[in-house]
């Protein structure tokens, strides 16, 4: 029941803001912040329990598929922390956006809540059709937010964003239908255990299996994004309003990686292992390429977009090492990147608002004029470059260690090279923004307000706490789980059994458990 309420909460908040109140401007922003904090508080307990799920309810039938689509929500180690990202970045984004959207705050908050709700939905769904509905629905609020509140080229950017992601997920839709037809139902737990059997015994023609595999992969590779499907990212991140891009890069993009872990690997264990090296390679290429291109950017939001490309590349490489350290490192790095990139987009949004420019050369001397802003920026940048003591370091260290062990020293070296390059572009940005004499004449108060500071501080606190104590993220992941999803899931403290746990039982050991629900 808790999960249903959690999923409904953002939509209820959006409805309440849209119709239930006539307040405008500042007071609606306070109401929105209050509601978003309620949602975040409701989401927090998920990380305390190992996994839980609601009762499955038959929903509707798709012609040609034996079992009905089921409405069931579940949360486990994999999704709990990503849900936190969406839950906690929303209040930060709403509060930090007050200065930017001003009197249109209510409209902005409504769509932000809808975006949050769809992200929750994708992460909570245990049925692939249900997942797909939310996965596609994310496009609507994103499109409205970018085209309604974005920069000068917002129309074009939002259009490209929607076209790219929609084109990416169209093959997923077809593949889904086929998968559900082959696997007699779209519920993930049953489907993945049947797919595991089917592919293990080679019951699927290899070309068909490969086509299905690629169709699913493309959807998530666009979302993540992976090279070379990243073309939408730079323009979208540059033109989207700071509050939205914080959610897009901090939470939504992670659903791409989530898709690999949740769907691609369990549904296609054979292909995933067979082509793991290619994914590691693609990830590492993204690391190097993203960092190199970021080094050449003069627009700081585009710089951050390429930085995200690199970080998520490292995450994907970590996932496809199939080593426990790699998966755990990927999880922490995702959380760390969500917090640091989300925070950086918000902080850079402040600077963009002051100067009405995103061009690094228009800035300078902010350390003199805006000392509090400078401290926030430097803290977040240090977290982004993975300084030890921040969560990013733990993630990068574990992934590099896994790369060394699974793919050889060369892979670890490439990943490490990206870490050096990330410091190069990040410090270049810091110097352009903060060092030197103030570039343009300043008008009025140009440092951040107390409220704007409090939007960012929790993110920095989270990065530092998880940097010294990442166990809350790592302990939820049972390492056996990801060795091809065949190992036995360790008993968890949570009283309610999670579907994701059941699917991991070896069918040969406990066949009743895998199918007998």
């Amino acid at each position: 029941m808790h999960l249903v309420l959690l999923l409904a909460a953002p939509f209820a908040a959006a409805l309440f803001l849209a119709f239930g109140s006539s307040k405008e401007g500042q007071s609606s922003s306070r109401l929105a912040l209050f509601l978003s904090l309620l949602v975040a508080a409701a989401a927090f307990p998920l990380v305390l329990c190992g996994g839980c799920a609601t009762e499955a309810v038959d929903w509707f039938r798709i012609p040609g598929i034996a079992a009905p689509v089921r409405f069931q929500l579940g949360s486990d180690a994999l999704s709990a922390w990503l849900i936190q990202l969406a839950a906690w970045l929303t209040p930060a984004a709403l509060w930090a956006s007050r200065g930017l959207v001003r009197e249109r705050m209510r409209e902005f908050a409504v769509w932000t809540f809808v975006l949050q709700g769809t992200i929750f939905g994708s992460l909570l769904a245990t049925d692939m059709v249900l997942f797909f509905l939310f996965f596609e629905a994310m496009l609507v609020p994103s499109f409205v937010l970018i085209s309604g509140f974005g920069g000068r080229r917002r129309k074009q950017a939002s259009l490209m964003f929607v076209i790219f992601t929609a084109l990416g997920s169209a093959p997923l839709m077809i593949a889904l239908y086929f998968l559900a037809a082959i696997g007699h139902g779209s519920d993930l737990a049953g489907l993945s255990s049947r797919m595991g059997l089917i592919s293990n015994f080679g019951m699927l023609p290899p070309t068909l299996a490969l086509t299905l595999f690629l169709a699913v992969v493309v959807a998530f590779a666009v979302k993540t994004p992976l090279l070379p499907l990243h073309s939408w990212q730079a323009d979208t991140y540059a033109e989207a309003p700071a509050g939205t891009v914080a959610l897009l890069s901090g939470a939504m993009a992670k659903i791409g990686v989530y898709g690999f872990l949740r769907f691609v690997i369990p549904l296609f264990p054979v292909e995933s292992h067979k082509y793991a090296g290619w994914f590691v390679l693609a990830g590492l290429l993204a690391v190097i390429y993203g960092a190199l291109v970021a080094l050449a950017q003069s627009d700081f939001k585009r710089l951050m977009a390429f930085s995200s490309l690199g970080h998520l590349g490292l995450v994907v490489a970590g996932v496809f090492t199939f080593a426990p350290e790699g998966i755990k490192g990927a999880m922490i790095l995702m959380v760390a990147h969500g917090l640091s990139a989300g925070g950086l987009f918000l902080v850079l949004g402040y600077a963009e608002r002051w100067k009405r420019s995103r061009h690094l050369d228009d800035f300078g001397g902010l350390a003199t004029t805006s000392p509090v802003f400078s401290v926030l920026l430097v803290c977040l940048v240090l977290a982004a470059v993975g300084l030890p003591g921040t969560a990013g370091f733990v993630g990068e260290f574990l992934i590099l260690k896994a790369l060394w062990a699974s793919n050889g020293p060369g892979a670890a070296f490439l990943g490490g090279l990206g870490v050096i390059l990330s410091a190069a572009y990040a410090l270049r940005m810091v110097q352009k923004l903060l060092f030197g004499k103030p570039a343009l004449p300043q008008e009025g108060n140009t440092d951040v307000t107390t409220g704007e500071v409090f939007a960012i501080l929790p993110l920095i606190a989270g990065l530092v706490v998880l940097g010294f104590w990442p166990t809350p993220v790592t302990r939820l992941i049972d390492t056996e789980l990801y060795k091809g999803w065949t190992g036995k899931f360790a008993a968890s403290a949570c009283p309610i059994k999670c579907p994701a746990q059941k699917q991991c039982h070896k069918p040969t050991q406990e066949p009743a458990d895998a199918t007998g629900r």
Partner: protein
Amino acid sequence: MNQLHNLLWLLPALPLLGAIVNGALSLAGSGTEKGPSRPLSGFLGTLASGSSFVLALLLALRLHPGEVFTQAPWTWIDAGSFKVSFGFAFDSLTAMMLLFITGIATLIHLYSIGYMSEDRGFARFFSYLNLFLASMIVLVLGSNMLMTFIGWEGVGLCSYLLIGFWHHDHANGDAARKAFLVNRAGDLGFLLGTFALMSLMGSQASLEYSVITAWFRDAAHISLLGTGTGAGLLTAATLLIFLGCTGKSAQIPLLTWLPDAMAGPTPVSALIHAATMVTSGVYLLARLSSVFVLSPLTMSVITGIGIATALWAAIAGLFQNDIKKVLAYSTVSQLGYMFVAAGIGSFDGALFHVFTHAFFKAALFLGAGSVIHAIHGEQDMRRMGGLAKKLPLTFAVMAAGWYAILGLPLGAGFWSKDMILEKAFEHSPLLYAFGLLGAVVTALYMTRLMVLTFFGRSRDEHAAAHAHEAPLTMALPLLVLGLGALTVGFFWAGMIPGMDSFRQMLEPVLGPAQQALAHGGEEHHGSAMLFAAVGTLAALVGASAAWKIWGGNAKVEAVGSSAPKGFGAHWTYLFDYLHALVILPTKALSWIGDKIVQTVVFGGLIALLQFLVELLGEAVRALQRPRLRVNLGVSLAGLVLLIAYFLLGAW
């Protein structure tokens, strides 16, 4: 008091608290006219450092030989079979490092109260200085390599913040960035080195120093490391970790950042870039000595790099006109001697030079700071001269530092440097010859510095006229360090029996590794006097030559900037040229990635896509629907059909 060793965490926590309080003070006062209260900031900062020193002293006094205090509050990283504790370990090596780090840091905090008194960012400065101290303490107190790495990158960060402390000047930002990035290159070596170590240790992989040491002292394991993959991995691991050391300790090839780091305030140069942070490479070698002694190849590389750096930097020191740059190259050169000592297996000798060098180089830097403070920021020695009379105390302290670094009898360097040279002779006479040559050049550039600064006539009357001696907060640390430069060598006065408390202290930690490497022959004490005499002679030759060249009223014209010119510039920037070989291709690749791949290839892809969508949109415009929906619908339907066709075909 029995619970004292449970307070290890307080050692870094105290300065960390100081950093946070001073940081908050700095931000709170940033909007006001005068800025935060300076006496308060200075007092808190110095108190934080001083109390760490007292605690370290109390702990060191209670430490029995061979004993280790440990504390591991929680498990930091837990990734299944691989665990890293958030642990501290306090043995005699750590005790020795901590005592001089916190001691000298406290003196330099005190000195900074006077030196930075006019600066707007006073509280911010103390915040950074405290943060640095906290990181440095974690570096030497960590019980595993990853804890050390927290401090390792932490001191790098503070170095970055302090080099770029005066942020209105972009040149300082460039220097700070360079320091951070060059160090990061080394840090990658450190990390990859830990991976190599862990793959060597296989299922027993751990980053705890105690486990690593025990594993690599086990005869069963040593036999595996002699040949094949084991030997290769061992060489790779040790060389990679040594690469990390060359970054932090400014050795060839990663040394270019240290001279540029002189852009920071002078107390920073004294504390971070001379006495403490740059010696962490030597500390790490000593900490992992049991691993390094097993790889003769790596040990030779360390010796070679050490002597090459010592000679190259000493010669580069001759070409500098900026007083701080001379001292910077001198530091690089002295660090080279420390690595020579480590490379020939005398880790305690290397650490002893770390220890004595911390005193005399800090005295020299603080003295230079006092000179710069007195003549209002001038750093070009060609515009100084005749300052001995104006600044008698500063002159006396710098003379003590000069006496010590030259290795003249009974000074600190006399004991530590001569010992290294003596050990070098046992290793190879050629190494000794190069070391001696370095000593001559050292005497040359140091005497040149003293002569140009303090003797002769004043070359800038205006500046000299207003020169004033330092205030008390600056004078006191100067005196203590000057005294230290003359006396700390007696902690290990090799020629005097029984005067080796320094060696005895480190024996439990370093002894086994050094004995494993010892050549079996007994030390020949008989010739110690001869070595001392030759070393002193070398110093005197260099000093008198310098006096001949630059003494009296030799013509020294200050033209243009203080940077060296001609051959001197090429020599000085030799490794900057080499770095350019890495930086330029990176920039080129970055340009190609952005302008060609991203803009042309992927940009073209987007344009093509856009064009197709427009085209489809035009075609079905007759339907009079909102354009976007049509665009999307048509392209989606097309794709769906396409995929369905393929799938059905395959089925």
